[in-house]
């Protein structure tokens, strides 16, 4: 991206000049932009393929300038795997909502992670099913009122929310898992860094990377955009603490393979030389 010296901030080139279809003030728009900025920053638009499964961001195949594939609800990690196995030198990301990633797509999520697929997952945790009009998500908070938890999420019947970063961090294939948010310019900058780092880990073959973005759905939560960020800060952040949940490089390993081997040091078969 050619940077003009008098421009401090402009639309990233990896976003096409089209209006997005998100509601006013929806965090999806911010995160879409951050992904595009990362693509620009790394200069990888021509070799990036994005996967847009069903959810409010489904039409993002129209927004990104890189090649895009629309995927079935929950199956983005499988689709991304198919793509990456054909094009191991390309960059593949999926951009998934909480319903998509953590409910219907849980098996695909866990397995892409444990396989250590060299893909980057951008995970928008807005504690709701946005696109279908505000049903309970796997990440909806206890007592949260939604269309399908009209009396507040009752954990005794609807169960507990899933903390995705915590869950996936137990898997050997995960190189990098961080939870961020985008409620302030400062946090937006942090989120951007995390996304760029995730792409870099993919490019360097370190392993699977996921960035969970604690986000908002003003429309279905029934708040203004500002009010939504408020509610999110008050209620979601205590439940979904921000931070790095796994970073194999920070842990001192080259990649997931080194880290996993160290964890399984006691197993003779794992450490059998020659067969690998």
């Amino acid at each position: 991206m050619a940077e003009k010296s008098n421009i401090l901030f402009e639309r990233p080139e990896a976003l096409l000049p089209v209006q997005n279809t998100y509601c006013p003030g929806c965090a999806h728009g911010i995160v879409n932009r951050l992904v595009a900025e990362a693509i620009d920053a790394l200069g990888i638009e021509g070799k990036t393929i994005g996967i847009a499964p069903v959810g409010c961001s489904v039409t993002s195949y129209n927004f990104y300038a890189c090649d895009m594939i629309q995927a079935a609800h929950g199956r983005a990690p499988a689709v991304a795997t198919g793509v990456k196995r054909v094009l191991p030198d390309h960059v593949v990301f999926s951009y998934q909502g909480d319903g998509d990633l953590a409910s219907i797509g849980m098996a695909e999520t866990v397995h892409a992670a444990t396989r250590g697929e060299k893909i980057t997952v951008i995970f928008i945790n807005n504690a709701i099913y946005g696109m279908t009009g505000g049903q309970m998500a796997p990440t909806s908070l206890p007592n949260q009122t939604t269309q399908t938890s009209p009396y507040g999420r009752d954990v005794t019947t609807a169960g507990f929310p899933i903390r995705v970063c915590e869950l996936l961090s137990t898997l050997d294939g995960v190189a990098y898992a961080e939870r961020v948010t985008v409620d302030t310019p400062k946090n937006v900058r942090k989120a951007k860094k995390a996304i760029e780092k995730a792409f870099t880990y993919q490019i360097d073959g370190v392993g699977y990377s996921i960035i969970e973005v604690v986000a908002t759905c003003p429309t279905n939560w029934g708040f203004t955009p500002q009010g939504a960020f408020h509610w999110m800060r008050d209620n979601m952040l205590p439940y979904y603490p921000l931070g790095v949940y796994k970073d194999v490089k920070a842990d001192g390993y080259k990649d997931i393979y080194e880290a996993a081997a160290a964890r399984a040091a006691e197993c003779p078969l794992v450490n059998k030389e020659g067969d690998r």
Partner: protein
Amino acid sequence: MPKILVDEFYCKGCGLCVSVCPQGIIELDMGKITGKGYHPARLTDESKCTGCTSCALMCPDVAITVER
């Protein structure tokens, strides 16, 4: 002098830029309705803009360009 440009084609009048501008110099233009039916953001006092890009960082519709 830094300043921002709001592209009304993109702006949905969400007001996030308004609330994060540390200078308090953005407002929604209630006198205007965009094609999609929104009141777009506008800079009220160009002279005070520091070019901090806070507004642009928060804009979900990538409507803001910040120039020096």
